[in-house]
């Protein structure tokens, strides 16, 4: 049976619509224009420019002719691109997972009541607070083959010296470990904040029901940390893949490009090789990779509600 519409209501709705149309006020939209222009200049102009560069030949001085997807095609044929893509994923995977585990362990520890807790909370934030240049240069001294503390200890144990920055495998380990060291305080801080808002009565109820510590952690703590964990993971993946300073200051992507991620590759192509088109193509592909990863994780988060 077709749906009947009350003619009086229909007349009223039409009248309201006309009133709305006639009372259109342009001022609010005009007031929004400066903000929109600012967003366009800051966000979209560089992006559009980047896309435009990526489909043109050219150098830092002048944009060359249109090459369509030629730069992307060259990139897909370059072993350097796959090497950087692979290292970016390895770097992000280990950084996100290990810094999360360390951050979670420390957050659980700092959530306990013990003397000196305040000091520990501040002290554990130091890796996050110290400027990247300072911390990375300090690490370079620590792991130096001659006179570095780590190698002095390893040598005294008969295990060294290890040439951390001179061998591809060890250089990857060094870059990842230092990134984890710089990242875990963020994980710790966010998780600690999330832990502190969990209702204590839930744990009391659990204990009354006979749950042990592991069951309390698994069934109460972890579910409450799920949302913040997904947000943290998204942010940390973005920050890891976009990380320029850690590999650049430590190894400059070497030795043998073993620690070169997509951002370093984009930098090398643009400023080293003077090929802005190829460098921009790497940057655009990095953006696409990050968008795919972020969207997947956000969908995962949405499903959990």
């Amino acid at each position, binding site marked *: 049976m077709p749906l009947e519409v009350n003619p009086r209501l229909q007349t009223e709705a039409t009248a309201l619509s006309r009133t709305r149309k006639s009372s259109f006020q342009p001022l609010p939209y005009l007031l929004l224009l400066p903000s929109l222009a600012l967003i366009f200049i800051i966000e979209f102009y560089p992006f559009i420019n980047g896309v435009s560069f990526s489909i043109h030949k050219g150098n*830092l001085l002048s944009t060359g002719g249109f090459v369509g997807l030629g730069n992307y095609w060259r990139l897909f044929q370059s072993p350097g691109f796959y090497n950087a893509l692979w290292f970016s994923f390895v770097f992000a995977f280990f950084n996100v997972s290990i810094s999360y585990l360390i951050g979670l362990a420390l957050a659980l520890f700092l959530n306990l009541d013990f003397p000196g807790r305040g000091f520990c909370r501040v002290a554990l934030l130091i890796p996050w607070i110290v400027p990247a240049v300072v911390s990375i240069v300090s690490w370079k001294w620590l792991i130096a083959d*001659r006179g570095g503390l780590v190698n002095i200890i390893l040598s005294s144990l008969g295990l060294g010296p290890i*040439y951390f920055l*001179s*061998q591809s495998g060890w250089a990857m380990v060094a870059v990842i470990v230092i990134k984890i060291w710089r990242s875990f305080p963020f994980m710790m801080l966010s998780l600690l904040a999330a832990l502190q808002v969990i209702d204590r009565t839930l744990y009391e109820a659990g204990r009354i029901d006979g749950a042990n510590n592991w069951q309390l952690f698994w069934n109460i703590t972890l579910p409450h940390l799920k949302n913040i964990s997904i947000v943290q993971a998204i942010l940390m993946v973005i920050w890891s893949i976009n990380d320029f300073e850690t590999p650049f200051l430590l190894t400059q992507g070497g*030795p*043998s490009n073993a620690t070169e991620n997509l951002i370093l590759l984009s930098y090398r192509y643009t400023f*080293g090789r*003077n090929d802005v088109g190829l460098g921009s193509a790497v940057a655009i592909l990095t953006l696409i990779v990050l968008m795919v990863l972020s969207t997947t994780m956000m969908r995962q988060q949405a499903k959990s509600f």
Partner: protein
Amino acid sequence: MKAPHPPPQSTLLLWIVVTSIALLLSPFAGQAKDHVDLQFWDMIWGPPEYIDTGKALVAQFNQEHPNITVNYRSVPWTNWYQTFVTAIGSGTAPDLSTGAGYQAIQLYDQDAILPLDDLISEWKSNGKLDDFLPGTIDILKYKDHYVALPWAIDIRVWYYRKDLLEQAHVQPPTTWQELKAAAQTLTDAKANRYGFVACGDTLGSQWLFTLILNNGGGLFTKDQKADLSSARNVEALQFLADLVRNHDVNPASAGYHDDDEVSAFTQGNGAIILHAPGLSRRLPKISDKMGVLKPLVGPHGDQGTIYWVNNVMLYKQGKHPTEAKEFLEWWSEHEKDLWTKGHVTQLPVRKSFAADPYIAGNAETSFIIENYVPVAKTTATHATEIFPKLNDVEGEGVMQTLTQNLLQGKDVEASVKEASARLKSILED
């Protein structure tokens, strides 16, 4: 009280016209019209006193030429290329500048450089060119134009620790064969002492260039195509790979930078290194224990090392090319102070400067000028002239990666194959 009437528009206009004419006719305005301001950007080529000397020279020029004021700006090497292209792109390029070895040709191809053909032609006819070391003028000829004027030579030479060689009863090597034998004798891995210490940065890649050129090889064919996998080149690379395989090269070398390499050399963790001239001045504590090897003789009797002829270039955007050339000419003839007072470690291209007691009296510098400069070659070898892509080849880091591969003991054939593909890709862009 009645307010005074504002002056009518015609009176105001008359005032403006009269004032403008008076200003234009005044002696001050005449001086301002004839006076020329030039911007000179000079890279930092030496210690802090280099900059002071450059400024003092410019002040002297300004005093001698009241109608020209040259403004001296010291430009750091960090992001040097971006500095220049940004300036050119925004229309604020200097009138003239010093720069990297191949900067002039790269910017010339982008229509930013003013050729110096007339100046060179004039100097050729009046004999002024005779003061320049052979080849240093013509090396900067590109597409039949002289794109810059040389001022200094940057070169790589072999330094060795006299004390370590004496302790090991090793004579300074003169051939590759002797070099290999010396390295073996000098190496004592347990004591962290090695025949060589190298590095994985730009200086490290110059090891490869030096060995390749020393062996009569070159990175390019005559028509500027990649030729890395030629027999002579591979033989040179294999020589380094063999030294690494025999543990004669400090194993930390692949991750070292210039400073680390020099530090290891100072501490005796490497007895022989490749470096720019002036190293003994940089290391006063061990300067009496250091020597420079004679240019080595390769297995086929060749000699060679890498060098760059650094230069001064004029920019098309400059509004006063005549005055800029006048300053360039003056600078080229008066810049001896850059060595005697500024202590720049590069070698002068002018024979008259090289004859100065400050330079001629320095045994190390004289030795390098006499022995290394005549056998030195550019990275463009065997191409018939230098070309813009050389900058991209150096900047892209292909040779650095190849050096790091070899210093880590990776397979020569696979490494050369990978590097050749990268090199071809750069040249084909």
